[in-house]
């Protein structure tokens, strides 16, 4: 399956940028989870740093696997992958590991696997396959309904955990592929308006209290500065106090003294902004932008529609996550459990993201094969 000449078509620049971002993330996790000398027996890296390091290694393996297998082969078997995903998601709801008020994980003994992180690439695969094989592309409502079915099953299962943040990231994947497949902007607008009209209903029926309070808090953070608004205010202070050059590696007071909650996870970018300053922010944002552009370039070069759609879907989800998380890390968006791909602490996320980039590299690498 893997021919030697393909090796020369690997997008080394993209791969380097991805690994560089993962490296920046690891550095920030090291900084924010470092066990300080003021703790008895302290003065060493925290356990989460090592977990993330191992996950990055595993993720790199996943990347190689999803690079090695022809993406068309994977697309052809996407229904199978999709069913496996749904099975896992159902299993999570039945026999998953519960933590922090939601059930998201399957215990594998050594570590916990979060299947929802694999929903994006799987959904991208099956939708790319569906629209790629359809000669007409996606032009009418019927196409949308089928796509919507593929989307809704994992969406509902993930939202039920509950993990609305991860579930929501499926939306850009759908729209990305539908858009590339020719869906008229008018249709997207219709859906968006419908969503807006349904929002009050959703507010009443679907949203849980904690989710409502998060949105309320976002609209007026000072109102609840010790509660939910606290995170948002602290996020702004963290980012703003970083200044142009930052406070220095492991010198950030907000992250180091735990004023910033979930610093290694949702707010890893805030830690970066605090310790590396605006310059660090620009460099990192630049890298992310480069990764996205480079991926879109891969979609452009793709030999077939499946490849282009696949890359487009994956990178839409990726870009959405990056933009949303970075906005949130500056306290400019409601706090959602939405991680920053490649940088936030989270093994499953790292593995799934690197695997997805395996697919993107895959599409570009096989642009000349038949």
């Amino acid at each position: 399956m893997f021919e030697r000449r393909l090796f020369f078509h690997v997008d080394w620049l993209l791969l380097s940028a991805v690994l560089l971002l993962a490296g920046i993330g690891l550095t920030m996790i090291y900084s924010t989870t470092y066990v300080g000398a003021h703790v008895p027996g302290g003065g060493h890296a925290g356990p989460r740093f090592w977990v993330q390091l191992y996950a990055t290694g595993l993720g790199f393996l996943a990347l190689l696997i999803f690079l090695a297998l022809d993406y068309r082969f994977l697309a052809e078997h996407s229904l199978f992958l999709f069913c496996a995903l749904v099975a896992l998601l159902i299993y999570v709801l039945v026999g998953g590991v519960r933590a922090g008020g939601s059930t998201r994980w399957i215990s594998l003994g050594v570590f916990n696997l979060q299947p929802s992180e694999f929903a994006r690439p799987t959904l991208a695969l099956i939708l790319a396959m569906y629209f790629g094989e359809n000669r007409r592309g996606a032009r009418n409502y019927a196409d949308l309904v089928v796509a919507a079915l593929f989307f809704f099953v994992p969406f509902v299962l993930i939202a039920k955990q509950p993990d609305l943040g991860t579930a929501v990231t499926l939306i850009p994947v759908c729209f990305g592929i539908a858009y590339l497949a020719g869906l008229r902007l008018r249709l997207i607008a219709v859906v968006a308006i419908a969503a807006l009209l349904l929002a009050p209903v959703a507010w009443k029926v679907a949203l849980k209290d904690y989710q409502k309070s998060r949105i309320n808090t976002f609209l007026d953070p000072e109102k609840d500065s010790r509660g939910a608004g606290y995170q948002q205010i602290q996020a702004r202070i963290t980012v703003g106090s970083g200044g142009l050059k930052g406070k220095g590696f492991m010198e950030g007071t907000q992250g180091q003294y735990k004023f910033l909650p979930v610093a290694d996870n949702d707010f890893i970018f805030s830690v970066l902004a605090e310790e590396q300053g605006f310059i660090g922010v620009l460099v990192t944002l630049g890298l992310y932008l480069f990764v996205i552009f480079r991926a879109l370039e891969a979609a452009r070069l793709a030999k077939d529609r499946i490849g282009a759609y696949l890359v487009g879907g994956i990178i839409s989800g990726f870009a959405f996550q990056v933009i949303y998380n970075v906005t949130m890390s500056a306290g400019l968006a409601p706090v959602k459990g939405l991680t920053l791909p490649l940088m936030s602490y989270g093994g499953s996320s790292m593995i799934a993201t690197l695997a997805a980039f395996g697919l993107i590299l895959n599409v570009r690498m096989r642009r000349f094969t038949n």
Partner: protein
Amino acid sequence: MSTSTPLMPDDRRSLMLRLTFMQYFVALLFGALAIGFWIFQVAQYDKFRDMAEENHLRRLPLPAPRGVLLDRSGKVLVQNQNTFNIALVREQTKNIDQTLRALARATGADEAQLREIVNRRRRDPSYRPIVLIENASLEQVIAATSRRLELPGIIYQEVPTRRYPTSAMAAHLFGYVSEVTETQLKQADYKDVESGAIIGQAGVEQAYNRRLMGTEGNKAVIVNSLGREIDVVKSLSYDPKEGQRLQLTIDADVQQAAEDGFFASGFNGAAVVLDPRNGEVLAFTSHPAYDPNAFAAGIDRAAWNALNTDELKPLSNRALQGRYSPGSVFKMAVGLAGLEEKVITPEFRVFCQGGQSFYGRYFKCWKPGGHGSIDLRHAIEQSCDVYFYTVGNMLGVDRIHKWATLFGLGVKSGIDLPNEVQGLVPSTEWKAANTKEKKWYAGETISVSIGQGQVSVTPISLAVYTATLANGGTRITPHLVKAVDEGQGLKAMPAPPPQSQVEVTAEKLQAIRDGMWLVVNGGSGTAARARIEGKDVCGKTGTAQVISNQGRTAARTTKNLRDHGWFTFFAPRDNPEIAGVVFLEHGIHSANAASVAKHILETYFAKKEGRPLPHAPTREDMRLDLRDSFARPGAPVGGN
């Protein structure tokens, strides 16, 4: 295996277009993000840097010990002693009410009061400790520490607390300290004082608060989001600086003698003793007094209310704030005015028949049979009222006013203590401006001549008056601080300049002083009991009516209608070095005041000459005259 469809040309064009659109869209959002971060991190950096610092840096005030007060010879009068405060750090407790309840249970403190304290300080930053129990007893501290788990946020501070001498010695002189009030915080004087600071609220503590307060230290600590202390920032921390030591002009032994004299006499009142050469106050007391220690340890509401509602007004500083008729001690001013205005000479004689008519009204002399023919010196010695009625009548009220004022009566002394009040020596001008009647009647001058009527003075002003007579006309400014230690050891503090220099003829003033010498040493004087062999004590007694004789007759005789007793004194006659006044509230007889003065003078001279100090007098030693001799209805009568 390749079942996928290759891209058709028009397909490709549309796809490329859409990919390009996506690219721009993402680039746009990233640009917006970069701008957002620029606004926070560069444009608003200062604001957020301050907020971050406020987050993790805690500045905890370390109270500075107040400056020690020394007496003129270096003896410690007021110092500090460490005590325990129990305080609350609100950010360390989730449920303040629960903590307060548990603390009240553990220590026996009043829960409502604790709550009120916290409520009063609610605007303070939540990391700053709020002192709940000042001067906690060891039992309270142990009880609270043993329930540490029930009392999150409760901390224990060792703080320097003011220690005053026991038995309320010189309480009004020292004043007291307590937490700065909310009203004070709004005043300009306390602009840089932080809420919760301990400041002087009366006496020297208030007057010299700036010097005594010292500089609060600061401990800058880094705390984490739970308020736990992680580290101390050495570069931002500094030790408290003790307040400046003040060496007072007070002589501890003379002060003690004044206190002892009052205790032995059993009367309330005031005494001020000073050095007539420079105005240094040697002793200063007001009775009844309070225990300033009670304030230093945080006075409880009941004790505070008791002090405030006490009929005897223990918080009032009688020496500065009490205004009383001077009675016969006023006669020197009238005599001197007569001499200086050339109305009389010292040899001027009046025939006293025990009373005389002026403007159709009969004014009695205190001595029923009269003094016969009497000159100025002996009129002072025997306090002849008729003599001074006559001189006062010749002078008129305005010339009396002029000379009394020149010698410090009816004006403020300028002492370095807060809240001094001004007495009153009437004049025609004063009456025109301040009364409905407006016109001065010559008959009123007769009462003024013997220090009655409208005349009212504070004890401190009478002390200045006496000192000015003693030193030859220099109206010295009484003051309390001799030296101050600003960090390089005690350095003399320059005495305040005299209020004025009175132009008097030495011989004329000497005639007055001769009379005052006779009062004590003349054999038929009114204060023979103040005589000290070889010391040439000079003085003058005065009895001030609290109520007119008619009123007295009408009222049931009660204790607080009895006459006040005065004794002003200086010694020795030539080159006097001590002068002062003793005022006994409802002291019945001025001779009783002379007894107190004698103990003060004996102590002063014994100490000066290195002799053993006299013992504190007993009540018997005072030879008090407690006969309320009031039994003479009729015309107003001057004191003896």
